[in-house]
């Protein structure tokens, strides 16, 4: 068990330092890179909170879709093969639902303000689940 403070709280402190102390003192290229660094910390914060649950949900769906066990990378490679050969495509509702949820989950971590994500939400696409 890791000691305190938690990763979430440390990240939040680094974020606050960037926003409140560093950025106001920077200009030009350095200010831009600081802003990017802040975005990266936000990605990490969301990944810490969401990815463990997302990965479990993805794993469970992949095992059921492919009918076999394995780690996420192996299962995803197998899925890629089946898609590339045409054995599975979007006419398969289980595959379609899986890909939508996985992708919604990735964007929810990487870029939740992306317009295409908002469009998908508005069209009723389901969010990724937090598996257990």
């Amino acid at each position, binding site marked *: 068990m890791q000691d305190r403070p938690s990763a979430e709280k440390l990240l939040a402190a680094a974020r606050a330092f960037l926003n409140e102390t560093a950025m106001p003192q920077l200009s*030009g*290229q350095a200010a*831009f*890179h600081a802003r*990017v*660094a802040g*975005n*990266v910390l936000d*990605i990490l914060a969301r990944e810490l909170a969401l990815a463990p649950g997302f990965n479990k949900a993805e794993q469970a769906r992949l095992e059921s879709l492919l009918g076999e066990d394995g780690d996420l*990378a192996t299962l*995803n*490679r197998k*899925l*890629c093969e089946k*898609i*590339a050969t*045409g054995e599975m*495509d*979007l006419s398969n509702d289980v595959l*379609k639902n899986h*890909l*939508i949820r*996985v*992708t*919604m989950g*990735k*964007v929810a*971590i*990487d*870029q939740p303000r*992306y*317009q*295409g*994500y*908002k*469009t*998908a939400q508005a*069209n009723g696409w389901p969010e990724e689940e937090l598996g257990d």
Partner: protein
Amino acid sequence: MKICCCSPFLEVAHRRREWQFSSMGSAEIDTFESQMAALCARRFDAPLAHLKRLSGGASQESWTFICDGEAYVLRRNPRGLRASENALPKASEAAIIGAAAKAGIAVPQVSFVCDDEDGIGEAYVMAFIDGETIARKILRDAEFDTVRPKLATQCGEMLAALHAIKIEGLPDLAYSDAAGELEKYAGYLQSSGHPHPVFELAIKWLRDNLPETRPPALVHGDFRNGNIMVSPEAGLVALLDWELAHFGDPMEDLGWPCVPSWRFGQHHLPVGGFGARADMYGAYRAAGGEIDEKATRFWEILGSLKWGIMCGVLMVSAFESGADPSVERGSIGRRASETEIDLLRMLMGED
């Protein structure tokens, strides 16, 4: 796969004109400044003034300067080094821009291509044009409100003129059609080893839906919001960034500006976030161009896949190999997922 820091793909993805990306040391800048002063003395018989780095980009440098009362832009490969195999040699790029100018396309006028005696490497000098290239400003700033609604039409007119250029007599550019572009990027994905089921789905669809082969045209190769210059008075005033020009399917240039990632948050306006496809297509047809809408759709989907693979494979490779370890390069890798959501939507028949 290793991507060198001068890969044109990095340039495609990373184009920020407001500052430099990879900074030169101050001694290097001093040397460059004296080289430019010598160039101005030789070429213009006048002193150099106001030399300023205009843009970054890992594969292109742009500098502005004033000489003899005129403003110029110098475009050169980073530090004057030879470009990677995918980018045009600067002399060919200048020749293509010259041919486009002759065909009535708004481009900056090339003054001269630098030679060995100029001593600054592969570069050319062109006239400075005043205008805005930053996509988000073009889409949001009030000063562009009046010209924004006509930009899609202007794009259609410009592309029709570009694609009507006879390719005989042009420099011998590489030929890359739909299958060629698709397999190039499918190869990048395969070599990366990281699984992307949505990209595989797109590749399968694209292989099954290749457009028919058209006679080769001069294709700009990077025609999108961000590479066009817009003025508040006249709208589209110049087409920039010709280093990815090639011979190929003209429909490529009509698909690329509609890729969702180039709509910059204005998703409901497919052409660059500023206009409707019907406006661009209508102007293209009115100017004598023929459009195959199945093919433009193919190129939109392939365009989104290309940008996704640029982010998820090429950027990641440049970052992880240490060629460009910046936080910015690394974070662009995480833009692959935006194209996955767009690709899924497009493959399901949505816009």
